[in-house]
Every structure is written in structure tokens, then in C-alpha cells.
């Protein structure tokens, strides 16, 4: 069983490398094909334009450019950003760390809120609290991060309770992380509630109850363990959701993350920076889904055997 798990992880690693390669290749090609570009405005004299384009290897045909870029990628060299005049690797690493901080905080908040509430609403079907939670979940699912962030920024700017933009103290993290966490937390709550309801209906639950296992232990321990599999299964998808959501949130709250950098790079047609962002983004995505997958395999060993 161990060896099958290892095999599964190796296969997943291979897939992760492919993913990074694929995404960044697409990014290079798209960014090179985009109309307009570095030094292609009317103000730049032709000889300066030629020099700049030569410096960034943009005068070479696309296949040559791509192979060179790939060759440097293997040595972890992502080239230099035209807009920032700094190595892309450095820029991307800083910004990706910021995005990772935001995303992991949001994920932690969503998990800590969503999972217990899900168990609660499933195990106490009657009462006001579960109904409130259920209603709040549906509303939270309908309020996308971009709007929650915007509204929270408005409230904060009016009341002065929280800093409204940028990054610095822990307080700067509150608005973007909460905005990101709400819909994800609601997703987890609904999912956990569904899974718990499902497991509570299983015969082994009735058997345990008959043997005198206290109900709270049954709900929070036995059923919780059994419901882990479907809930953990969603985490691989949530990584992508959070990533998507963090783009809008970063723009609204001025969080200096990968999304902002990518947007600036796209607007400026900074090919190396676009490609670098794609590498960093797909790397994080690959790591996130890999981690979710490994966690899932550890909880449910059957998965490791079947593949």
C-alpha cells in the first residue's frame, strides 16, 4: 500500500511539472502574439526600439525565443522584467509569497469556520442556529470576493476600523482574507453538512449508538472521520477557486500579490514577466492540488490502491 501511494505521488509530481510547463508555454506564446509591445509606440525612435527588442530577445522569431526561454527556465532564470528593470525571478518570488500568505490565511479561516458549522447544521436539524447558518451560507455563496472586498473597503474607509489597502501589518490582511474566505467557507459548510448527514445515516452509526457511544462523540469523532473523504476531495478544486478569487481581491484591496503583477505585466506587454507569473502561478496551483491529493490518499488508502 505504501509503495502504491509513493507511485501515485510520483505520477502526480510528473503531472505537476507538465502543468507548469504547459501553462508557462501558453503564456509565452500568447504574450508574444499580443499586438503592441515593448517599444512599439510612436514616440520611441527606431534605433532605441531595436536595441530594447534585442536586449529582451524580442527580435528573434517565436520558436527561437521560446527555446531560449525554456533553456533558461531549466536553470531557474526567468529573465528580466522590462517594466521593473529587475530580475523576474525576484519579483515573482516576493509577489507569489504575498499571494500565498493571503490564500493560506483565507483557506485556514474558511476551514475553521465552515467545517464545524457544517457538522453543527447537519447534526442539529432543528433550531434557529442551524437555519441561520444555512441561510448565511446561501447568501455567502452569492457574494463574490470582489464585492465583499469592495463593501468592506467602503465600511473601513468610512469608519477607520481597518486599513483599506496595501500590505504591512496583520490588520491589512483582514479585509482581503475575509472576503476570500466567505464563499469558500460557505462551500465547505454546505459540503460538510451534506457529508455528515450522509454518514449519520449509515448503519454503523446506528450500531455505535446502540452500543452506547454518546451522541456528541458519534457526531464529532466517528462521523467526522468518515466524512473527511468527500470534504478533502474538494480542497484540490478550492485551491483554484481561491486563486481565482484572490485576483479580484488583490486588485480591490491593493494587495501586492501575483494577480496585480500579472495584470500590470499583461498591460505593459512585458513578455518575460507574464511568463514568470504563469510559472509561479501554475507552480502554486500544482503544489496546492498535490498537497490536497496526498492528504486525500492518506485519509482514504483505497484511493492509493486503485490507481
Amino acid at each position, binding site marked *: 500500500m505504501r509503495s502504491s501511494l509513493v507511485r501515485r505521488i510520483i505520477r502526480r509530481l510528473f503531472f505537476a511539472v507538465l502543468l507548469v510547463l504547459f501553462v508557462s508555454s501558453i503564456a509565452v506564446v500568447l504574450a508574444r502574439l499580443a499586438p503592441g509591445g515593448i517599444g512599439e509606440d510612436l514616440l520611441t525612435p527606431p534605433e532605441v526600439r531595436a536595441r530594447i527588442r534585442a536586449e529582451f530577445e524580442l527580435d528573434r522569431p517565436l520558436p527561437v525565443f521560446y527555446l531560449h526561454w525554456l533553456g533558461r527556465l531549466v536553470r531557474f532564470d526567468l529573465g528580466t522584467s522590462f517594466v521593473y528593470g529587475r530580475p523576474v525571478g525576484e519579483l515573482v518570488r516576493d509577489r507569489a509569497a504575498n499571494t500565498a500568505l493571503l490564500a493560506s490565511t483565507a483557506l485556514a479561516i474558511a476551514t475553521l469556520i465552515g467545517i464545524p458549522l457544517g457538522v453543527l447544521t447537519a447534526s442539529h436539524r432543528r433550531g434557529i442556529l442551524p437555519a441561520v447558518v444555512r441561510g448565511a451560507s446561501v447568501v455567502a455563496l452569492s457574494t463574490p470576493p470582489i*464585492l465583499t472586498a*469592495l463593501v468592506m473597503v467602503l465600511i473601513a*474607509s468610512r469608519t477607520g476600523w481597518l486599513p483599506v489597502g496595501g500590505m504591512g501589518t496583520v490588520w491589512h490582511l483582514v479585509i482581503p482574507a475575509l472576503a476570500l474566505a466567505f464563499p469558500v467557507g460557505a462551500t465547505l459548510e454546505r459540503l460538510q453538512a451534506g457529508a455528515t448527514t450522509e454518514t449519520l445515516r449509515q448503519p454503523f452509526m446506528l450500531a455505535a449508538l446502540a452500543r452506547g457511544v454518546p451522541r456528541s462523540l458519534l457526531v464529532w469523532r466517528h462521523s467526522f472521520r468518515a466524512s473527511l473523504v468527500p470534504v478533502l476531495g474538494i480542497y484540490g478544486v478550492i485551491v483554484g477557486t481561491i486563486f481565482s478569487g484572490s485576483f479580484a481581491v488583490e486588485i480591490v484591496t491593493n494587495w501586492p500579490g501575483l494577480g496585480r503583477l500579472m495584470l500590470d505585466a499583461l498591460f505593459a506587454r512585458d513578455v518575460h514577466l507574464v511568463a514568470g507569473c504563469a510559472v509561479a502561478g501554475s507552480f502554486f496551483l500544482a503544489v496546492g492540488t498535490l498537497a490536497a491529493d496526498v492528504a486525500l490518499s492518506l485519509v482514504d488508502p483505497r484511493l492509493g490502491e486503485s490507481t
Partner: protein
Amino acid sequence: MTRVGQALVVLWIAAGAFAPVLAPNPPAAQFEFPYAPPMRPRIIDADGHWRAPFVYGIRVRSLIERTYEIDTTRPVPLVWFSNGRFVSTADPSTPLLLLGSDAINRDVFARLLYGARASLGVAIVAGVCALLIGAIAGAAAGYAGGWIDDVVMRAADLLILLPAIYIVLALRAVMPLTLEFHQVFWLMAVILGLVGWPHVARPVRAIVASESRREYVEAARAVGAGPGRIVLRHLVPAAGHALITQATLLLPAFVLAEATLSFVGLGFPDPAASWGTMLLEAGRNVRAVSEYPWMLAPAVAIILFVLGLHLSAGDGRRGEPLTDTSLGAK
């Protein structure tokens, strides 16, 4: 609750469809009051007398602070069904501003209706694209099996794994940055459709693959129906319910994608109204919005529309956008 949700959705689509009739003013017309407050239609005047529906004009109290007061000396009657508009004011110098005006003096209510037209229009066209591509790809994969199935479904898996907004962003940003309204409309719809189809293809494939082993398909084949007819007339209709479910999940995501793209300046060009461009205008000046909360109307509109779709899709458990199809462990 399902009924409430459906009513919300229908209401917004109707608002968009009939925007030219329902809006009291043209969406790009500029009046003389920046950030004017919403006007209330009245039937009782300041002296306590009943009269036909009218509004009071507004008077500038301070131009620098942009504060206004109601001018009770000057009631302006509302006129119905004139100039092809459902309702407007009799006096063109006092426009009917049901939701106030924005930073450059435009009618927020009119822009909200025209915004519904643009935003929901894009989302619906994109939804049709996604359903078409997804149904064809899913049906082909499920019916043919073999390598076609492998190629199509691997591509779908990959697209679902990638963060959708970044693909949309990249595809939009590599096109020329400034485009006409209708170019943006179709470009955005096609891009969103291309990103959305895997969410349709997956359930369709699963249904088609299992249904194609049923007796009625065998019977159809026995009476001489070709594969095209079997898939189109028998198998795709069997997946009809899944198509509707996926559409209710995709539409909110598409509305949001439009909002996000417009918010970062890659959406509709300036004078045009969409919920995204209106959000952008609100986001440009955060301080102003806390003084003039009606600028948040597009946010409320988006939430109500998305909530409506979630409610009409039934239990909230199914409601998470774009993640629905892979709940089980794979």
C-alpha cells in the same frame, strides 16, 4: 424560495431586455448634478395635498461639498409612455433620477438597467456557447469512448483545474486593449464560453456514456437510427436536466467574470454601462462612495442576480460555483 429565486432572475433579465423602455433617461446622458441623491416619486405634496405622481426638483446647497436639497416649490409631474419611455419627467431640466446620479452626472438607475443588458447579455451568450461546446464535446466523448473520450476529457480536466479568471484575463489581454462595445461583447462571450464548456461536458459525458448502454438506445439503433440521430435526439435530451443545472452554475460565474474584467479595465469601453464598469466607477473613488451609497447599486444588482440563480437551482448544497462536478474523490 425556488420561486423567489426564479422571480429575481426573470426580473433582471426583463430589466435588461426592456432597458430602453424602462429607463427614464439615456444611459450616457449627462445632467447638471454630480452625485445627486435618489429622487422619490410622491403623490402627496409638502402642503399635504394629493396629486398625480410627481417628483420635487433638487437645488444645489453646496457645489463644493456636492450637497443638495429638495426644492419643494417646484413639483415636476411624471409623464407616462412618452417618447417611448415608460416613465419620465415633464421637465427635461429636472430628469427623473430614481437612484441618483454618478460622478459625471449620469442616471445611475438607467445605467443599472442598461448594465443588466450588457452584463446579462454577455453571460447568456457565453452560457449558450458553453452549453453548445460542452454538449457536443461531452456527447462525443461519452458516445464514442476510446481516444476521443480520453483527449476531450483530459482537456476538460486541465481547464477545470486552472483558475478560470486568469485564463479569461490572459485571453482578453492578448487581444487589442481598446475595442468597440460590440467587439468586447462578442469577444468576452466567446472567451467565457471557451472557459466554461468543461463544466458542461463532464456531466453530459457521464450521462451519455451510461445512457448509451440502455435498451432504448439499442432499440433506436435496431430501427436504423444513425449515431448522429441517437446522440442528438435521444442522449442529449437525457442530459437536459444536467444542462440546466450547469447553466445556473455558470451564469453567476460569467456575470462575475464580466464584472472583474471591466473592473480591471479590460471590459466594456467607457461610456457604455455594464455592472462591471459601474463597479469600476464606484471603486475609483472609495471615499465618494461612502458619501454616496447609491453608487453601490451594481454590487447589489450582482448579488441579487447571483442569489436568485442559487435559489432557483434549489438547495444551497449544490450551489458552489464552478466546483460542482468533482465533489466525489477521483
